[in-house]
């Protein structure tokens, strides 16, 4: 036994303490049935390319509520414009995150937002323009992005006051890992009108608990 412990001790020392303290939540969110199928207005784009735009299946965001310190270094995220669509269509970020908006199409886009959480208008910028236009999202809330040129383009940035969040897959399944131990609340954002009531969770280091949002 002493031999085994002596073997395990170096292994334990090599493992970060934070990892040992981490907990996880997994489960499933019942997603909305709707599937957004955008239709492009090409009435006067007589030389526009043909094609059908990709559909946006509904997704949800699961996040942990609590008192968390702001990030020491502002996180960076990207939300691209490609094939006349925002990719991804839903982007959860922690408050303080700087989001870059690269344009991968060979034409202009003009991203803007009227949302109270962040009001801005990036104007028209070339695909190869440097630096890539970006916006820092400081206030928690939901930001609806639109394109002033292509009215079918729509995306959401969910700004959260927590570093602990995850997006579900298209079946609603999620796994939120790397969580600190303690008592917290977990919620699921489903759409702009629907966020589930908070569910109290007791997280224990090294354990995974299951939470479903019907």
């Amino acid at each position, binding site marked *: 036994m002493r031999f085994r412990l002596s073997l395990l001790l170096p292994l334990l020392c090599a493992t970060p303490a934070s990892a040992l303290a981490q907990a996880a939540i997994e489960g499933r969110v019942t997603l909305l049935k*709707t*599937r*957004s*199928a*955008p*239709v*492009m*207005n*090409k*009435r*006067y*784009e*007589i*030389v*526009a*390319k*043909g*094609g*059908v735009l990709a*559909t946006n299946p509904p997704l949800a965001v699961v996040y942990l509520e609590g008192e968390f310190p702001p990030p020491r270094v502002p996180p960076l995220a990207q939300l691209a414009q490609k094939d006349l669509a925002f990719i991804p269509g839903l982007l959860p970020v922690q408050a303080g995150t700087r989001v870059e908006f690269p344009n991968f199409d*060979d*034409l*202009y886009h003009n991203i*803007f*937002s*009227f949302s109270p959480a962040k*009001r*801005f*208008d990036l*104007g*028209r*910028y*070339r*695909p190869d323009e440097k630096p890539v236009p970006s916006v820092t999202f400081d206030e928690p809330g939901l930001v*609806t992005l*639109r394109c002033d040129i292509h*009215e*079918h383009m*729509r995306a959401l940035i969910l700004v959260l006051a927590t570093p602990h969040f995850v997006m579900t897959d298209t079946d609603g399944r999620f796994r939120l890992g790397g969580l600190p131990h303690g008592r917290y609340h977990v919620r699921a954002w489903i759409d*702009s*009108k629907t966020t589930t009531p908070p569910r109290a969770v007791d997280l224990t280091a090294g354990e995974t608990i299951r939470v479903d949002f019907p």
Partner: protein
Amino acid sequence: MSRARSIRSFARGLAVLFVLLVPISRVAAANEDALDRLEETLTFATPDAQARARLSGLIDLEQYHFQLPPPGVIRATGNDLFTPRLTLFLDAQLGSQLYLFAQARWDRGFDPQPAHGRVRLDEYALRYTPWPDGRLSVQAGRFGTIVGNWTPRHGAWTDAFISAPLAYEQLTGLWDREAITNPVALLRWSHVRSGLPAAITAREKDLRIPVLWGPAYATGFALSGDLGKFGYAAEIKHAPVSSRPETWEPGQVSFAHPSIGARLRYRPNAMWNLGFSATSGTYLTPAAERTLLPRHGRGDYRQITLGQDLVVAWHHWQFWAEVFEARYTIPVVGDADLVSYYAEVKYKFSPQLSAAVRWNQQLFGEITDRTGPVTWGKNAWRLDAAPAWRFTPHTQLKLQYSLQHGDTGARAFTHTLATQFTLRF
């Protein structure tokens, strides 16, 4: 009505409009999400999303105050005019190759006028794009002209101004229901000779035509394609770009004298867009047949128009310019030429506030009458300024002030004020 009284009357109308707009915009802001949801509700798709359709629309409330005679193609006997408009759009994608669109309107006439409201189907067309790279598309139906670069942005939501550029609405001295038989008639119709009674000026307004009549929703066929930095389009329509809205109606469609048009587009990058257009067709309607000179047909009275256009956009700046050179070939009279151009710049100060300024000018060439060379129309210029405020992504208010010189009746200058509230859904 005195000028001071009429301006007070317009100010009162504007105040009433603003009083109405405050609750409207508040309701719109509070229901922003509801309008987004309405958009989703009005979008339909099959389970595999290969067939999908979307209904959308605009509600416009326009108020004009002008000095008589009314500017452009506005028809009115008083100084003020209120024109509400409901526009419904259908966009349908059937697989990756078929695209169908339609536009229906309820308003008091295609051009602002004090008429009873009525419903029209202004556009309906089917487009077939066989290859995904868009090298070729074929379109048939009733649709806006491919000539120039204003038609793609002529909607109330996208146009920075309430009125069209001068080339698209300033009336020339040419009539489309009667053929000119001598130079003196053309000069009389053009009101080149001063001292015409106001009643004649007003009556003849309904007879005259501009270089292009708005988006020219005539019926026909078009080919178009995207070849990298180049694009092309060609159309054959039943009526020319100068044809009046009444001639676009289905009962008026005849291809006895079709109009043809073509456009080449060069776009070196997203910032620059240059276009070259040409169109040719008879400017006379069938009603003019009875007035033709002997041994001449309608096809001898042609309008040939060349156009060059430019769009430059960078960050919050947008710049548009178009130049049209029009030649009217008129038996006995000869060629009557004119040049019409405009340059327009818009700047977005914030997501909500933008402002635009446009300079328009129309210059006539000379024809020869008994006294020698004489300018065959009244040169005109117009300066437009238009601030706009977007309350929400679905509601917008535009104001426009225009100062015009030339072809303005007995006045040297005329002033026009206009405001337009638009709700988009």
